[in-house]
């Protein structure tokens, strides 16, 4: 009885979470250009999608910004974690406090503040400014997922490695790195996802002629979304879903080997 109630609750939440996504999936097969009318089943949007250079360019921008910014953020974030770990308590508190700012501050304020900076410095708004902004808000996600792993480390193992003649770099890659790897990976994934999903900060730091999927969709929301967008989102979603299942199946098979 109790179990059934739990199961129903989970199912309801999942319906809530995934109903809009199913809706978009259905709209991607709608022959009518208007989302308000069902014009029959079609796969034409999936075909025209790849011919639509505007959308393809926005997709490319989105993916390259997400990838570059999350890689840079992962490297900078991980290195900073090592440094923060070795700091005194006060310094650590300050730097963690600053790290929290972009994550806890309103996106709109972060976006506006960066826009003001770029304009005052005379940096032309474009790909590069979006990238800088994304790195900035991605670093905290990396730090906050690597830090807890760092704290669990036993410092004497690292010292022991040094005593046994390993260099700092060797000791890091042989001793610390494997232990904090799960944290780094989840930080990277989080950063990538956040960058991909961001609209507000991109909206304020973007310049002419450059669009990510988010900003492109925002202009289109008011004008009527091109159905190709639904198709593209559905493809992205399904690809990620499949990847997720593959990744989660492999570890289970391992012990059987």
């Amino acid at each position, binding site marked *: 009885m109790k179990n059934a109630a739990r199961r129903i609750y989970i199912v309801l939440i999942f319906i809530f979470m995934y109903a809009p996504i199913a809706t978009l999936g259905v709209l991607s097969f709608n022959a009518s250009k*208007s989302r308000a009318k069902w014009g029959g089943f079609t796969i034409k949007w999936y075909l025209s999608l790849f011919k639509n250079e505007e959308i393809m*360019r926005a997709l490319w921008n989105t993916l390259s910004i997400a990838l570059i910014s999350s890689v840079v953020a992962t490297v900078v974030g991980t290195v900073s974690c090592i440094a923060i770990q070795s700091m005194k308590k006060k310094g650590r508190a300050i730097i963690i406090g600053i790290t929290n700012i972009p994550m806890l501050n309103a996106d709109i304020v972060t976006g506006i503040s960066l826009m003001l900076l770029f304009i005052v410095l005379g940096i032309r708004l474009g790909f590069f400014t979006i990238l800088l902004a994304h790195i900035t808000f991605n670093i905290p996600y990396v730090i906050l997922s690597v830090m807890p792993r760092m704290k669990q480390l036993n410092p004497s193992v690292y010292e022991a490695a040094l005593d046994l003649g390993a260099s700092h770099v060797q000791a890091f890659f042989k001793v610390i790195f494997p232990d904090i790897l799960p944290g780094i990976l989840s930080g990277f994934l989080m950063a990538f996802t956040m960058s991909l999903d961001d609209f507000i900060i991109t909206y304020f730091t973007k310049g002419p002629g450059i669009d990510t999927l988010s900003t492109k969709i925002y*202009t289109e929301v*008011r004008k009527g979304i091109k159905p190709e967008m639904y198709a593209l989102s559905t493809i992205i979603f399904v690809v990620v879903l499949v990847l997720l299942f593959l990744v989660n199946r492999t570890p289970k098979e391992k012990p059987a080997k």
Partner: protein
Amino acid sequence: MTACLFAGCGSSDKYPNGKVYVYNWGEYIDEETIKLFEKETGIEVIYDEFDTNETMYPKIEAGASNYDVVCPSDYMIQKMVDNDLLAELNWDNLPNARSNIGAEYYEQSLAFDPDNRYSVPYCWGTVGILYNTTMVDEPVTSWSILWDEKYKDNILMQDSVRDLFMVALKELGYSMNSTNEAELQEAKNLLITQKPLVQAYVIDQVRDKMIGDEAALGVIYSGEAIYTQRENPNLAYVIPEEGTNVWIDSWVIPKNAENKENAEKFIDFMCRGDIALMNFEFITYSTPNTAARDLIEDEDIRNSEIAFPDLSQYNNLETFSYLGEEADRLYNDLWKEIKSYTSY
């Protein structure tokens, strides 16, 4: 295509003649025409979209973004002229614009571009009421139907300041270019009394919502009427008897444009009869291009009252003009009052 997805990469071989940055309304061009332009001229088009005149203006003013061609509406062009943001056109480079655009549209442009020095008309139209004939039984002739309690929650209004005030000012019998504070206050109060009846303030979502039978009445640009009627035959468009806004969206070149010559090539290309026709068929907004209109094959559309209304039969038609910074602020403050009003 895959080789050159990255903005700006290796453009030199494919586009030997440089670039042109275009900033236009969303869904306001047939993308095929851009490709044709790129192919014929070897100029790469970097295309960007805006959704209201008001969001476009600060971007041009800030100067952080150097666009070469922009397509604002009448009053916004005047504001840009007043603030010295536009470059004068060299008409020698615009033969198609001179021969194909009807003289009456240049004449109309004089209201916001005295001497026709800065702008080339691209689209024009009116603003009116789109209504669903299955939900509205009485004949729609006046703006006042938008204040009819019967249609509570079935009315869609425009979410941009001048368009919203235009409706109320016309309903009150004032000029839609009024800067008289008493008149504007009156208009504001009228709009506040209307707010409980309004389903939503939207821009072009009027289109989808009207097609989906979500609302009975919506204020809409005439260009959308043809498209929406095609999708939902129960819809009808009417220009209210109190008069309305006759608007023109025109191509202009900002002063800080870095590729002025390419910009003029782009504008002139868009004025070519066959290209203007492609755009008309795609966006269904009335074209001022007489060469394009002559090329329209479908007789019903060529003579359509919606696409090409005979303006002489309407009263009190006006075109927006720029009202100055002081009035701008007044409008914005009053608009904020309307938006923040709630009946609960």
